[in-house]
């Protein structure tokens, strides 16, 4: 089944990427945050791949990152320092949180592949000044990509990049429709494999598989009790071990659950918003990244995330939300008390969990299970 391909890609990202370079002899740039304008890279036929951690304990980042920075940025940096990405032609980051930025700059100092770029993605995305500023900064990025590839691009190329990424976004949203159903046709883990595998693959090769998956899902029914419908809200999180733990609780315990929607940057914050084409591609791209659901570090003065989160909760009919946070993730830590209050005020129970590089599945299982018990209207017990 096509849907299984996603997991294969996720687990063998390096094989795929090395093979891609061999096959296409093309350039590949690793990016650190979802604010990287992939459209522009595709316009140059440069493959943008997102760098995520490996969720393994490591001991190589200690000299480079002071202890109070988030486990995710450590894990990401470790991949570079261990040489797992030596095949990249370049690295780039678009400014979001300063934690991840540090992973980028340490990588830049010690593992510079010869091309690197810091894009000052504006933080004041609610200002009218953000789009023109960003569009102009894109021109510098384009100049540097011209140096990397030795080619120049036209609006036609940019529009091609836009169409590729928009197609990806529409496809992902189509697949997410299946999760609204009473018995979702795919699990949260499968959905996560789906979105993440796209980070690691050429969208043009990922799309046909994803479209095939849609056809297959139409006739698929999962032979499992979906249990409680959960939403995940919070920091970057591709912690599949955790999601699998949550979704298999039902096999071991008397309560079970399915993750039906997330609001974080490994899924919806990354893909939910499309580029609106008005004829000025650079402006259009800038506009998209400025107006997408913001990372909390950019979500001010108004906290716009809240409405999107609530809409997800309603559309996907969730029973409760688990608010997950990468340890030390300041942007989310400044939002979480308000996100929780907002959800509770709207009758959506929440539970909070702090994530580290590796999930302590044991302690987490008991918490999630107890949280599910509070959702469970199992009157037989009382």
């Amino acid at each position, binding site marked *: 089944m096509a849907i299984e391909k996603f997991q294969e890609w996720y687990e063998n990202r390096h094989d795929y990427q090395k093979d891609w370079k061999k096959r296409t002899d093309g350039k590949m740039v690793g990016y650190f945050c979802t604010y990287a304008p992939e459209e522009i890279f595709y316009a140059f036929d440069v493959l943008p791949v997102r760098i995520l951690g490996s969720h393994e*304990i490591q*001991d190589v980042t*200690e*000299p480079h990152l002071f*202890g109070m920075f988030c486990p995710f940025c450590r894990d990401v940096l470790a991949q570079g320092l261990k040489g797992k990405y030596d095949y990249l032609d370049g690295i780039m980051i678009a400014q979001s949180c300063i934690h991840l930025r540090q992973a980028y700059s340490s990588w830049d100092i010690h593992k510079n592949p010869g091309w690197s770029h810091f894009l000052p993605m504006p933080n004041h995305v609610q200002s009218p000044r953000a789009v023109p500023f960003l569009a102009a900064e894109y021109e510098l990025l384009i100049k540097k990509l011209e140096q990397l590839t030795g080619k120049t691009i036209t609006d036609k190329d940019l529009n091609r990049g836009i169409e590729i990424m928009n197609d990806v976004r529409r496809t992902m949203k189509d697949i997410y429709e299946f999760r609204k159903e009473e018995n979702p046709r795919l699990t949260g883990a499968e959905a996560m494999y789906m979105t993440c595998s796209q980070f690691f693959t050429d969208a043009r090769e990922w799309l046909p598989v994803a479209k095939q998956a849609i056809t297959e899902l139409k006739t698929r029914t999962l032979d499992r009790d979906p249990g409680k419908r959960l939403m995940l809200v919070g920091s970057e999180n591709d912690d599949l071990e955790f999601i699998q733990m949550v979704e298999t609780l039902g096999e071991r315990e008397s309560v079970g659950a399915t993750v039906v929607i997330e609001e974080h940057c490994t899924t919806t914050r990354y893909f939910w918003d499309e580029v609106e084409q008005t004829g000025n591609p650079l402006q259009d791209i800038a506009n998209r990244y400025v107006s997408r659901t913001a990372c909390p570090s950019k979500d001010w003065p108004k906290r716009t995330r809240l409405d999107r989160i609530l809409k997800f909760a309603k559309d996907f009919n969730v029973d409760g939300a688990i608010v997950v946070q990468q340890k030390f993730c300041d942007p989310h830590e400044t939002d979480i008390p308000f996100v929780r209050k907002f959800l509770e005020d709207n009758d959506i129970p929440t539970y909070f969990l702090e994530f580290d590089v*590796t*999930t302590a599945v*044991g*302690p987490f299982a008991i918490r999630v299970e107890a949280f599910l018990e509070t959702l469970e209207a199992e009157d037989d017990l009382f």
Partner: protein
Amino acid sequence: MITSGIDCGAKNTKTIILKDGKIIGKGTALTGFDQEKAVQESLEAAVKSAGISRDDIEKIFGTGSGKDAIKMADETVNDIKSMTKGINFFFPNARTVADVGAEEGRAAKIDEKGMPVDFAINEKCAAGAGAFIEAMSRALETPLEEMGQLALSSDKEIPMNAQCAIFAESEVVGLIHAKTEKKDISKAIHDSMASRIVSMIRRIGVNEDVGMIGGVAYNPGFVEAMKRELKLEKIHIPDDPEFGTAAGAAALASEAR
């Protein structure tokens, strides 16, 4: 000349007596709550084993967390300096040293004279000190002395997530419940601790010639784990690693004419 170094540590107090650059006596005592008593005991034991009298000792240097309790010391030196001098005394080529004691892990980069160039001390975490393996041996219901040997007989790789010694206990219990073999758990324990220590060593930089002292260096399981983490064939360890710092203090005393 005859000099002596006394290292008053968190758990044990150790004394070394040097004569013209050779160790002629050593003694140890449980530090307990009365440090001065412990200091006396270990010095007396050392003097006895050296077959000399107290007065033959020309200079005494004190070191360790309880160095201020070493009243008879001519001078006290900080434990980083005595650690680096200590490894330099046994292995002049060593340029990196790790000292893993009961409650603290330390590492330093050394120059050819055995002086510290740069150093790191583990930040308030038991997971990077002997106390960790001690706590785990309780959870595993295995005598501390057997933990290391047990680890050697395993080739499994089980990651340990918990950093807090107490939570690590329950993770161990969890592994036991999951029917994991004791030897594999013991290896996991040593691996996770070695990875903490190595992580600290990397802060100051690793080179080919790494030396290790401190009580935990007696533990073969830990030493193997360290080699794996550091990707080194060999780590220089003196016969009595626990006396490394005391030897360093004694050596410093003999240089200070």
